């Protein structure tokens, strides 16, 4: 992965930068010894590593502002970091950058059940936001798989989704306001406990901007009352096409399940071997979950089962108890772990129109043959967000490169059928160079201009999201002006 050449002037003034940062932060919040900065050399995309110049862990919005003022004045790039769980390399440092970690900003600032929101500092983990309100039977809806560890800051940066967004939407649909610090160190408030913007929807463009427009330190999030109950049904089919048609028919029927998960045969086999969930051995498996009271669930599953029967399932298993529900989910939830046990894998994240599912699965199978790498498919079928897992051997020279090449072809296929490169993980470093497959120069130019407005010196989270050749003129101009 090509990265810009580190700025020699910045590397040369490391000592000065450290002492400036130590003037505004406690000494233990400024991490600069090489053996310590290595902890920040990568995120969950471990294929790429680079220790930062310095890492800082501020404890307040004001400290974040003080850090950014210094970095702005010194022309030092800043890489914001939540919990470091990005699968796209969103928090990968450059050698001349300061990692700004928000992990210490983890407090709940306000909970308001009457108005149905919670205000938190963004270093707080996703699951602990729900944890803060579940005693009152409320929850925060977006639920990325990494929710135990991932921070709200990262969720906002990547506009994270999860398994339940068919019904509840993704982060941007549940984010009401933010406190953000600009690269200049100015603290601004956008949105709040009321709905929608008074003028331009700045909140909408900040969410999903991958930490390139500002550092979000506080967030107002919509919370919802928990449903009375939930129950899954498991269906097995003897072809991917039939399973795909069943998904489409369920959606058309007017019942909106809270989740529709799809697994193909390689994935079913791996999960079964790993978790012994008792899955049927078939070509495709769907897990469909609905919510409500027991009677409401019966009514919804009645409709869904009727549709499934028309597609001649090889198995149709409705949960009759909490234990059976857990068993149905057990295999799916262990999918990534199961894959990790047999192989190294790369998890893709393209989204496709649901109608193109059979074509894309065939295309992936063809690519799998062409590259000689196995693929297991598990994904959120209701919204077309695919997660093909390409299996490779990290110890085998050239296998990672082969895997990346194949991954790029799969994502291009997603774009070709009307979809996109990434549905919920973000572009980061991983898909940066594929952006030209989805966007024209004019499309990207308008995105770059947004960046120009928020971060004119191009210091925030450098070398991400856009191909380097696309951003080079702006970065060089900013560097020359510094």
């Amino acid at each position, binding site marked *: 992965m090509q990265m810009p050449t580190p700025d020699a002037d910045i590397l040369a003034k490391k000592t000065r930068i450290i002492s400036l940062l130590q003037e505004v932060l406690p000494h233990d919040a400024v991490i600069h010894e090489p053996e310590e900065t290595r902890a920040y050399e990568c995120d969950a995309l471990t294929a790429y590593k680079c220790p930062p110049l310095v890492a800082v862990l501020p404890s307040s919005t004001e400290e974040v502002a003080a850090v950014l003022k210094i970095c702005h004045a010194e022309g030092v790039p800043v890489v914001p970091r939540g919990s470091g769980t990005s699968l796209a390399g969103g928090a990968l440092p450059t050698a001349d950058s300061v990692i700004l970690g928000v992990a210490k900003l983890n407090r709940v600032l306000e909970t*308001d059940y*009457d*108005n149905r929101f919670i205000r938190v500092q963004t270093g707080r983990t996703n699951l602990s936001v729900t944890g803060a309100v579940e005693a009152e039977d*409320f929850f925060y809806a977006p639920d990325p798989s990494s929710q135990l560890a991932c921070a709200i800051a990262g969720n906002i940066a990547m*506009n994270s*989704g999860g398994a339940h*967004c068919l019904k509840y939407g*993704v982060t941007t649909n549940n984010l009401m306001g933010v406190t953000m610090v600009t690269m200049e160190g100015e603290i*601004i*408030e956008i949105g709040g406990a*009321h*709905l*929608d*913007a*008074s*003028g*331009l*929807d700045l*909140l*909408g*463009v900040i*969410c999903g901007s991958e930490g390139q427009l500002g550092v979000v330190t506080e967030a107002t999030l919509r919370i919802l009352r*928990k449903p009375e109950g939930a129950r899954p049904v498991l269906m097995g089919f003897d072809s991917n096409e039939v399973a795909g048609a069943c998904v*489409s028919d369920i*959606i*058309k*029927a*007017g*019942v*909106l399940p809270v989740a529709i998960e799809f697994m193909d045969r390689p994935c079913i086999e791996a999960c079964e071997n790993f978790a012994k969930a008792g899955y049927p051995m078939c070509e495709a498996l769907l897990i469909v979950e609905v919510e*409500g009271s027991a*009677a*409401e669930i019966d*009514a*919804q599953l009645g409709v869904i089962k009727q549709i499934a029967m028309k597609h001649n399932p090889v198995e149709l298993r409705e949960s009759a108890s909490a234990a059976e529900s857990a068993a149905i989910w057990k295999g799916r939830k262990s999918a990534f772990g199961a894959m990790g046990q047999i192989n190294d894998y790369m998890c893709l994240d393209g*989204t496709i*129109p*649901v*109608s193109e599912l059979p074509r894309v699965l065939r295309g992936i199978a063809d690519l799998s043959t062409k590259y000689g790498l196995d693929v297991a498919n598990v994904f959120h079928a209701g*919204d*077309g*967000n695919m997660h093909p897992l390409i299996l490779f051997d990290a110890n085998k020279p050239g296998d990672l490169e082969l895997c990346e090449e194949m991954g790029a072809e799969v994502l291009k296929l997603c774009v070709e059928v*009307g*979809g996109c*490169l*990434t*549905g*919920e993980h973000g*572009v980061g470093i991983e*898909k940066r160079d594929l*952006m030209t497959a*989805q*966007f*024209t120069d004019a*499309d990207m130019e308008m*995105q770059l201009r*947004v960046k*120009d*407005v928020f971060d004119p010196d191009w210091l925030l989270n450098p070398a991400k999201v*856009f191909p380097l050749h696309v951003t080079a003129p702006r970065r060089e101009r900013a560097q020359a002006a510094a």
Partner: protein
Amino acid sequence: MLQPASESELAQAVRDASGPVRVRGGGTRDIGNPVAGEALSVSKLSGISLYEPGALTMVVEAGTPVAEIEAALVAEGQRLPFEPMDHRALLGTQGEPTIGGVVAANASGPRRIQAGACRDSLIGVRFVTGEGEIVKNGGRVMKNVTGYDLVKLMAGSFGTLGVLSEVSLKVLPAPDSAASLSVLGLDTERAVTALSAALGSPFEVSGAAHMTEDKDGPRTLVRIEGLPEQVSYRTEKLKTLLGQFGEVVADSDPASVAATWAAIRDVQHFAGKDGDVWRVSVKPSDAPEIAAQSGGSVFFDWGGGLVWVLVPPGTDLRARLGSFAGHATLIRASEETRAAQPVFHPEPAPLAALSAGLRKKFDPRGILNPGLMA
């Protein structure tokens, strides 16, 4: 009036424009500070380009009438989740509302509290910048985080950042059944408390309004939608929950429920009445105080989160309300009144600077609806 018949003609028209243009769709939403300039209509960019009911997605040209979209959706048992307001009755305008106008105004009705605003259902846009460049963002899939989200930025930008040529929308199944429950006689405080209780319940309320001056006095309303079994179950549950506030009357007649909520959506209560109409977005529990301070006629949607206010012409409502957390937009007033005060709530300086910076980048010549939102 400029009336390009294709996206490329639209781009050419913008490139050729030597002065300001007033962007319009059906011309039914005359909202904003008055704008001078030649009218640029997208009404000829019309038609549904793609509709996949099984994928819950639709791609339409910006000038497509909302009525045409809704008819196509009804045929498949689906609908626009955000229930866009039809502004004609309130504003006294004629013509056919278009989807481009809905998106430009981020028009969202009572279901906003459950299904999100227009911006939440908007998954892709194509637009022409102030320099006449054709740009796309988002796409036709409902989960997409590829690049910056300019889709949200375009929603509610009232044609000041670009001229929309095409939009992609997430649609939803239209449930078979609906019911409306109402409680009579509550004051604004009790009404918001009752609505908050309903919205904080697990019964998936999709509408929560309070009419302070209905024909039998104040009326507090909630709506539920779903399968018949769900609606009957939740009706009973909500009757019990709301019973602590007063006698609950349930209406499950489909036509009557639809008419009740269409009237709320379109602010028919203030249609034809003299005066300026404001739309105030606040935290629901602040609604009673806003109502009292406004000194006007009010009603609440969004559980109190949206306060509609009718005041005498020329009233500076923001002066009456003083400083509050939220924003007030002047939706209906004479051109003179709208020229004399900002229609959109003035933003704090740093946000105003960012917004001005974005407009400058999207429309460097300042020719697209200049001043409409300023």
